[in-house]
């Protein structure tokens, strides 16, 4: 289990336990949760519809300048929604190398 980082002494605990650094959960790489498979995009088939980006619960796709969508292994949990919803079957789930 990834230890929660920044276990500070009580005096350094932020007021009321409020987390000041919005979005700092990005530090936690949920990509470690993949164990079986991960998606791979065949850009020949991709028509830039963006469904992979729209339907990803973990926002593991980012829009590239060329209009294609880039997969980010740091956060993808390997659920397979993108592969299933890609209208052109451009995304296949491939085995995670163990």
């Amino acid at each position, binding site marked *: 289990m990834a230890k929660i980082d920044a276990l500070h002494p009580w005096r350094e605990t932020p007021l009321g336990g409020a987390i000041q650094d919005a979005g700092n*959960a990005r530090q936690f790489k949920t990509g470690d949760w993949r164990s079986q498979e991960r998606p791979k995009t065949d850009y020949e088939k991709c028509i830039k519809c963006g469904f992979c980006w729209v339907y990803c619960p973990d*926002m593991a796709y980012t829009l590239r300048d060329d209009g294609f969508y880039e997969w980010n292994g740091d956060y993808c949990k390997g659920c397979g929604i993108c592969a299933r919803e890609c209208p052109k079957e451009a995304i296949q789930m491939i085995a995670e190398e163990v």
Partner: protein
Amino acid sequence: MITNEPKDFKRFTPKTLPQEEIIVSGHRACQGCGEVLALRLVGKAIGTPMIVVSATGCMEIISSPYPQTAWAVPWLHVAFENAAAVASGVEAGLKTLMAKGRIPRRKIAVVAFAGDGGTADIGLQSLSGAMERGHDFVYVCLDNEAYMNTGIQRSSSTPYGAMTTTSPAGKVIGGQTTWKKNLAAIMAAHNIPYVATASPAYHLDLMNKAKKAAMIKGPAYLHVYSPCPTGWRHGTDLAIEVSRLVVETNIFPLYEVIDGKYVVRKNTKPKPVEEYLKIQRRFSHLTPEMIQTIQKRVDEEYEKLLKLEVATQGLEGREGPKEEAAKKD
């Protein structure tokens, strides 16, 4: 077809979807979570500046493992049954501080997120109060049809027949014995300006409704279907598939109630409910009779909805259902 959308409301199109996210990667939702996806799309549609109030539940737990937060917008969680009450205080506080010039006057979307348990059961009273008082905020019920954060216990929003850990598929009682509480109807009965149901598979429809809800002055209620692979026992890749099937089978019709007038997205050739039920193991124990009961009730509820549309819009002899269905979303 009445379409009195707010004045400067422009519908999202596939090309005009905003990039901004209100929640970031690194949250701890399960693989393939439909609820965090629904939350993300609603937040993206409403956009900032926004202040979010969450009820206790999956979305609150997975997004705020102190000292980390997945929220990119200001966020407050107090307890399980008071998201609407806390949001009332946030809204009233902002309004007064702006009136007194203590903070800049601008439109800040106040959005409350809660699950079905936090909305239909423990939080119903504070929700009713906030709606009746007319606070200018959006309440979003992310309906994954059971208490998932505590381990898949039944709620009043669990569908008839579904197996949960407190409505088990027993030899004598086969799963949930009650029909799903109709929250959208309860909210519509509060005569608030806007109520809508939405499903992540119809993301443009969902996002347009969320945007409209935020733009309309006064309280708005969004009931968003939110698949949970862990709780519904289906593949982690099926969140969108079940979100589509639930609409195609008329189990979860998509509609709006704008100033009391129902606007229903027609579906005149619904798929049989079985197609939806069979891909989820929470329904694997259903007998043919139970499936028939569900089919019959689903058809009745859908007919009721169409009648409500006619009744509330008071329009006679408008376009028949066939022409309606032709218009694809």
